[in-house]
């Protein structure tokens, strides 16, 4: 079985030793101890595991790690720069856009991919861009608001 021995995660080259068929989520969480990306369903249905692959929102639970090798992987741990929160992270706190917050990493990563494609989305574009992410606590209205704050569209 093919092996993956190195990954680019959050701007750093990381050494791993895993089968290429293992899920990217398992490698991030178990091998690299980057546990901000969550397991929610393992089927790409809830978005809790969302990371960026070369900037595109990707469900890491259904992505084999072999497909991520050679790409820039960004996880929630990579958003904070020099001790300064990413504008989306700030906005989620400001809008109180979480309850249990288990979905929050995936929400922020999906939102960051959305904003990099469409820096000023309208409400409908936010809803359709985020509809693959589930928040069981039901904070959708606040998450929309947080994305509007971060994109300066409030």
């Amino acid at each position: 079985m093919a092996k993956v021995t190195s990954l680019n995660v959050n701007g750093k080259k990381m050494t791993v030793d895993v089968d290429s068929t293992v899920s990217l989520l398992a490698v991030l969480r178990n091998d690299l101890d980057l546990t901000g990306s969550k397991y929610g369903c393992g089927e790409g249905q809830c978005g809790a595991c969302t990371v960026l692959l070369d900037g595109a929102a990707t469900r890491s639970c259904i992505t084999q790690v072999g497909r991520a090798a050679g790409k820039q992987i960004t996880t929630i741990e990579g958003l904070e720069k020099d001790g300064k929160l990413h504008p989306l992270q700030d906005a989620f706190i400001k809008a109180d856009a979480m309850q249990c917050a288990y979905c929050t990493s995936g929400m922020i990563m999906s939102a960051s991919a959305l904003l990099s494609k469409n820096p000023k989305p309208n409400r409908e574009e936010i809803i359709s861009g985020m509809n693959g992410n589930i928040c069981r606590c039901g904070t959708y209205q606040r998450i929309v608001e947080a994305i509007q704050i971060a994109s300066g569209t409030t």
Partner: protein
Amino acid sequence: MNEQLDLTIGIESERYELFENPGYYFNFDRRDFIKAFGLGIVFIVPAARALAQQRGQGESGRGGSNERLPNDLGAWIHIDEDGGVTVFTGKVEVGQNTRTSLTQAVADELHVPIDSVHLVMGDTDLTPFDMGTFGSRSTPTMAPQLRKAAAAAREMLIAMAAEQLKVAPGDLRIVDARFLNHDKSKTLTLAEVAKGRKLVKVIPDDIAITQPKDWTIAGASARKVEAKNFVTGKHRYTSDIKREGMLYGKVVRPATFNATLVSVDTKAAEAMPGAKVVTDGNFIGVVAADQQTVTKAANAIAVDWKSPGQPSNAELFDLLRKTGTERRGGEGPRPQGSIVDVVNPPIGGGGSRPQGSIADGLVAADKKLEQTYTVQYIAHAPLEPRAAVAEWSGDQLTVWTGSQRPFGVRSELAEAFHISEDKVRVIVPDTGSGYGGKHTGECAVEAARLAKAAGKPVKLVWTREEEFTWAYFRPAGVIDIKSGVKNDGTLTAWEFHNYNSGAAGIQIKYDIPNTDIRVHQSNSPLRQGSYRGLAATANHFARESHIDELAHAVNIDPLEFRLKNIKDERLRDVLQAAAKSFGWGKAKPASGHGFGIACGFEKGGYIATCAEIAVEPPSDKEDKSNKRVRIVRVVEAFECGAVVNPLHLKNQIEGAITMAIGGALFESIQFENGKILNPHFASYRVPRFADSPAIEVVLVDRKDIPSAGAGETPIVGLAPAVANAIFNATGLRLRSLPLIPKGLTTG
């Protein structure tokens, strides 16, 4: 009130409002607080006093329960040498933001900034015993208890500071963690008072707590404490915990419910390098150093299960009605605290003595109505599935797990492994939600069993399919209502039978001279248990739909009809507040839109919900004959006494409304012959962004009324308001939840 309750009782999901005593207490002598906490000052609250405070009354007089050891502890607060305040509570944080609201209560009472207060929660070695975090009890009971401890601590700290400053205690006050005398000529910080101390102080009993009108930190909005840890992914939920040498576990489940093991062949799995198979009775599990191996090994185990024939959705409601046996409050045998009883409690109690005569009431009526309402089983589907990390050290067991009952899980573990409870430590990290679904400890027991066999720490995280199948469900139910009304809108008779779904929210605030309200306990084909608001959703759905039908039967506006029959001022206030903000009575924005209203009360909260829906053509993917119902707008007014944190209360209410949309419109567990047919988010639809309406929350703040909890009751108004709005838009009366699992068939 609770005199007849047994100390060893497990959770009865319908009796949250009855306060149960802990089954045992920590012994003060066993704990060397100074050693545990280091320097500083520890304030302790004796348990008996704390409980009396919780109840607002003295002891119940039940045999034996008066005899408290003087050193039983109900709460404790530690002030460290840096002036940091650590509070210990057995409550847990599952997203309801009780960590924030309890922090506010302590900061408010101690007069220190919020960020100087840290809560240690849900750790059975560090925190006082607590029955569990459920029933919306944290705000009405734990907050006053911690306030009392903090208030007493404040007064004792002032006395100590006065001694240090050589002033009279009456000359000192504490502002923002600083002690000041009248002209601020003498000051000390909290840290300066705690410095070098090594004290344990028992707080006096006669301390008054600050009333809501005088709150400064509570009563105002505060954002989630430690929010930064969540937006950066740093917070470690149970499923994120890693221990030295930890293995990953997996349990091999039966093919159906109630299956018995016939034979198992583990040879192929055992041959896999690194995999270890564990069998014990009906339990089959595997551990391995990585997730991939453990999954492969589990799949390689060949098991033959024998399964009895079991009911399906098609026969559910007949079954519930057929097996229903009446049970009034306080009657019948009580469940014991086993796992099965905890999740499958007899859901009875809460009905009430009949008033007047239904027959007379129906004779007096101009219009009579008899209808049946049903609700399906639904799943909690917390986004973090059940998870546990178990670690043995000799015969000492430590388990991290996401549970609403850390001490209950400790009991389950002690029982499962035949060890005493003081050998078991359960730690509950802030958890990825529960909604009443994480009261039991099966995942913890499984992880501990695997860890024991492996001789290493084991992490077990249930898959989504396991969570949808092997957890427990909100009870399904059948509700029959018979009623009478006069043409002027006066209600004359109300006969209400709830089969299986339970008693929460069954009592009425409508003034009706003749009532008969009963709860019937049925044989549930699926494992059932607590859920946010529990039966209050079913009972409100049936009652508020029926009230709407009666209003239409006598041609009276549904709001006016309710106000005519409700005297309770608190309920009238929320009804009028919601109607006003919603614009009840105004013209609908377009054809195909409908307005609906519903109201109710439960667990100290009063609620009124107005909904606007729109009937729209189906999307391309949907059945052409079935239209879509979109919830356009929801206005909900809520009153739960004095508001502790407006921001988080609004957040809770918005969340409850959003969660309620699933159960109202489309969530339904499909089952057949012992199998769950839709154990995935792809087949069990939960509300998403696109389902989310514009939500407006109206808070009615009653500073003259003690705060009630708010995590549950805001969920109950949405389903009936939406059903009534669908009727308003289409003339179709839908009496089953979910209302439109496959869209709206308009004929």
